[in-house]
């Protein structure tokens, strides 16, 4: 059997794919955070809760309405994104003129409410969401066994990242968004409906989180607390990468997933903490973040 640094190749590759899949989630979530931060200048602490809502909506939609996975993948981000837009319109907008730390605190309160409510109805133990039939099983690549669903998650997440990049960098709406990120007051003076743009942007970011949630539903136990612990890791990823560039957010997310996966192979005790340790190193040697512009 082929060994890599004393570990069987199959195990090594298995953890590597697992790491890449985790990294895809980090990338999707930190991308959503970065999009929201760009225009609203707030850190969306409810992002984890909204990711969890995505997974739950898929689960409940299947259980009670018979909505299948593929439909959920399209519908759930729209529904949860619309919910996000309501939050922005009726809560976040009221404090948009204040110090942006208040936005962090408000979304933290919202996360507590959403998470606490679902815990009361569904408990903390995870529910299982069946993998769609087409994506069950896996491919034997000779040197490793690749579960189809994991491969699909990677493809779908990267496609979504690419779609986001295209929307922001290559469309008129995206150009507005970038201009608004630079100077939203000037944009408004030019006659662009900035408040609407902000609502849409927040909805889009939340939708991204919900999309990640649906992708995650067949992979991890669906529980009300699945988002919050993930979100803190994503915060560390955001600190490492900086929120300046879309490409940076995606790369950092994937890289951190891989590092975490490899740590699981070689030093499992540190698997939970390695991303935080990388964050400390980055803060020491490159405090603005790997792709960050501001200090």
């Amino acid at each position, binding site marked *: 059997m082929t060994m890599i640094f004393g570990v069987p190749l199959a195990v090594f590759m298995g953890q590597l794919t697992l790491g890449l899949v985790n990294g895809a989630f980090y990338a999707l979530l930190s991308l959503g955070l970065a999009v929201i931060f760009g225009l609203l200048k707030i850190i969306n602490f409810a992002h984890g809760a909204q990711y969890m809502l995505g997974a739950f909506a898929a689960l409940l939609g299947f259980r009670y309405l018979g909505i299948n996975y593929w439909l959920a993948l399209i519908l759930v981000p729209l529904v949860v994104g619309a919910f996000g837009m309501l939050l922005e319109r009726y809560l976040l907008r009221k404090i948009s003129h204040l110090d942006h730390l208040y936005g962090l605190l408000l979304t933290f309160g919202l996360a507590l409410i959403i998470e606490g409510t679902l815990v009361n109805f569904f408990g903390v133990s995870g529910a299982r969401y069946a993998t769609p039939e087409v994506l069950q099983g896996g491919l034997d690549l000779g040197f490793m066994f690749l579960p189809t669903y994991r491969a699909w998650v990677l493809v779908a997440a990267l496609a979504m990242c690419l779609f986001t990049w295209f929307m922001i960098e290559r469309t008129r709406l995206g150009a507005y968004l970038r201009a608004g990120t630079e100077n939203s007051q000037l944009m408004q003076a030019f006659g662009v409906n900035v408040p609407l743009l902000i609502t849409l942007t927040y909805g889009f970011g939340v939708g991204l989180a919900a999309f990640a949630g649906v992708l995650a539903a067949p992979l991890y136990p669906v529980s009300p607390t699945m988002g919050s612990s993930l979100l803190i890791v994503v915060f560390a990823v955001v600190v490492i990468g900086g929120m300046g560039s879309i490409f940076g957010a995606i790369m950092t997310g994937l890289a951190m997933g891989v590092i975490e996966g490899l740590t699981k192979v070689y030093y499992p005790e540190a698997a939970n903490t390695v991303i*935080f340790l990388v964050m400390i190193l980055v803060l020491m040697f490159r405090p603005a973040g790997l792709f960050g512009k501001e200090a």
Partner: protein
Amino acid sequence: MSDAQTLARPSAVMERQKRAIMRRNLFYVALVVVGLVAPFVAYPVFLMKVLCFALFACAFNLLLGYAGLLSFGHAAFLATGGYITGYLLASYPGLTPEIGIMAGTLVATALGALFGILAIRRQGIYFAMVTLALAQLVYFVFVQAPFTGGEDGLHGVPRGELLGFISLSNNLAMYYFVFAVFLFGFALIQRTVHSPYGQVLKAIRENEPRAVSLGYNTDMYKLVAFVISAALAGLAGSTKTVVFQLASLTDAHWHMSGEVILMTLLGGVGTLLGPIMGAGIVVSLQHVLSQSPLGNWVSVILGIIFVICVLSFRSGIVGEIARMYNKNFK
């Protein structure tokens, strides 16, 4: 009061200031008297819990209210103080509680210095995320470390005998010790806030670039504030462990960091008495709710209070009272 008046009669201004300080001191004396009488009116263990969290919130407020730094990781210091004190007192029966508490506080202080050095490299929203991530790191360390008892936590920490001869197993004796610790912490914060150092801290909060241009090493000021805050949070955690004779992961969880923000926000950010009041309200609320049918909804209710505070009650209870007082009596 108009500027013309004050310019005309400087002695009157000084007179008024003197009266204000006198009123303040009278108020403090009244509070101390209330604190001394309280255990005869209310259940001492409950009061001790309030005092520990009040000290925790005051420590947090020093950072948010006076330096303008939002730490989302203060649970780490509370838990570190608690775990170190708990471990030492449980494994070395000869140690007196005050040594255990000092050791816990010292380790929390050192951790605060480490966190601070890293976190002040980023500002604003990033500062909050960095502290949160570092605290999560500490949380995972406590989950895995051999001396913390993992998910179970540390139980049966002896209260011991203060200075070797005052038994703290009596709740009343324990209460007065906790009250003394609290007064020490509060006095330290009060002194810090009203010192020249505290004034510079406020200047940094209001406008950091200007403070830099005036020649202040703002990083150093922020770091010192962070370390003092962490030390007092550790002291609160250590004391709490002695009172309840246990240390658990609850204290290290990010919910705890959120709770202390809520206490401070609800009572009044940047007021000395606000965090005390906020801690009192939140602890009482949790106490009442846990015995009612709404027991499972505590975190939802705290979230709702959070949202209401941020949306329409940003100066907090003490802040609002101060504003009303200033409007009607001055």
